[in-house]
């Protein structure tokens, strides 16, 4: 079946984790879907890197966190918070590509 992430998640967000990292949280609506996604590894290093057009080596961690039925991905910030050329000091609006992320299980 085809899914769009924003249809099965209750939270999709991005934020700084310190000035040199960006971290993305996806919290699923229910444990059923979370378990399916976790089992299929529908969100993984390969498709996350291609979604954001970044090298896989920039992904610091990609963790499935059971207590919150969440996936958390932390990456090296392409530009540190507030450095020249940067566009989102708090990193709070970098999540939009994830909302339209499509996957099939």
């Amino acid at each position: 079946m085809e899914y769009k992430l924003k249809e099965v998640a209750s939270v999709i967000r991005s934020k700084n984790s310190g000035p040199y990292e960006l971290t993305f949280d996806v919290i699923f609506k229910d444990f059923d879907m979370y378990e399916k996604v976790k089992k299929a590894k529908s969100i993984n290093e390969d498709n996350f890197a291609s979604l954001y057009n970044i090298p896989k080596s920039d992904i610091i961690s990609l963790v499935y966190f059971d207590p919150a039925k969440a996936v958390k991905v932390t990456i090296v910030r392409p530009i540190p918070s507030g450095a020249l050329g940067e566009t989102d000091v708090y990193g709070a609006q970098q999540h939009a590509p994830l909302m339209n992320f499509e996957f099939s299980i």
Partner: protein
Amino acid sequence: MDELRILSPTAILGYGFPMESFEEGMKRKPHVIAVDAGSTDPGPYYLGAGKSFTDKNSVKRDLEIMIPAALEANIPVIIGTAGGSGGRPHVEFNLDIIKEIAKEKKLSFKLAIIQSEFEKDFIKEKLRKGDIEPLHPAKQITEEEIDNTVRIVAQMGEEPFMKALEEGADVILAGRSYDPSVFSALAIKEGFNKGLAIHLGKILECAAIAALPGSGSDSMFGYLRKDNFVLEPLSPLRKCTTLSIAAHTLYEKTNPYILPGPGGAINLHECEFKQLDENKVQVSGSKFVPTDEYFVKLEGVRKVGYRTISFAGVKDPIMISKIDSITQSVKDRVVNNFENYGLIDFFLDFKIYGKNGVMGMFPHIEEEAGNELMIIIEAVAPTQEQADTICGFARSTMLHFGYEGRIATAGNLAFPFSPSDCKMGEVYEFNVYHLMKVDNPTDLFPIEYMEFNKQS
């Protein structure tokens, strides 16, 4: 002591809280009122410029309620990361507010002031000893880079707070602090489990942001027991759910299972979240795992120059279709114009809203443009005057730039304001984000005391 109760009035000192929530908190007889007053989130400017990102009146309003209530209940007030960034000027900003309150309200109390800003020579000496290492993805630092740094602070753990409490402080005002420390210090001093105390602090530091619906300007209450802790929002409008609390454990962290801090990390692999009733959640299983050596996190910024910006809108569809080549041509013209004049050291950027402006740090992930654009022309140069020159010249060049296919020949930009250009002042960037090995995490952060009494 079987239970230690902690009141966290607000997510950041100055963000405010409803009086009803605070009073509910005081009814529960807290042993301490603690508040985090800062963050690196607002970016490098505030640490560099020595300014607070929170407003003086807003901070005073919060403290004017917290300090007298705590003195009356005979419990301490602990403030961490004073003035937003925790440098000396930031501590001074907050100290002035406390002095005003003490005088106006005729209060008597003992204030501890803990500093966290370090001299460059001290940091350089630590670097030479091999005690400083970069925190990935920051790079190793050099002595020259330390010289370029405007201000360096270190995040203190709970130890300096414990010392100030032992020495009888009623109010503690501290520089840069690891966020949970202000909440965990009294608990650790009283012998409670360190893993639970710090994890509780991690959640309390954002107050009601961890509740549903979340709020940065409402209070949260924590009950710490021998083998668990409980969170309760103080407004009837909010609830703590296992999901809201577990989700908050993710917030602003790299890895939700391991949360590193001064002297060690909390390990949440065996952590359990349990719904106690409609609005309370109990957490257990959080463990503190100390590191062999004690490290504190350093934060520092260097000055990059001065910034001038200009805003302008674009509606012309032909211009929008050619915007990338136009900005490149304008950049080339600016460089070419000032090359021989000797003005060559500057940064010129165009932030194009309506065409991947928000996510500009990820180039080429979305190429579609909207039907109108907002362009921010940004110039950063060694002096404000030079930044004005570059920004102004880029603006006038772009306004009349004759791009290929142009049919609107009167002007390319819609300026919403006159004047069109805006001086933004000093620009800083983070250049220190490193771990520093320390022998004594208490003495590293000097404490001084100040006595206030009604008569003075």
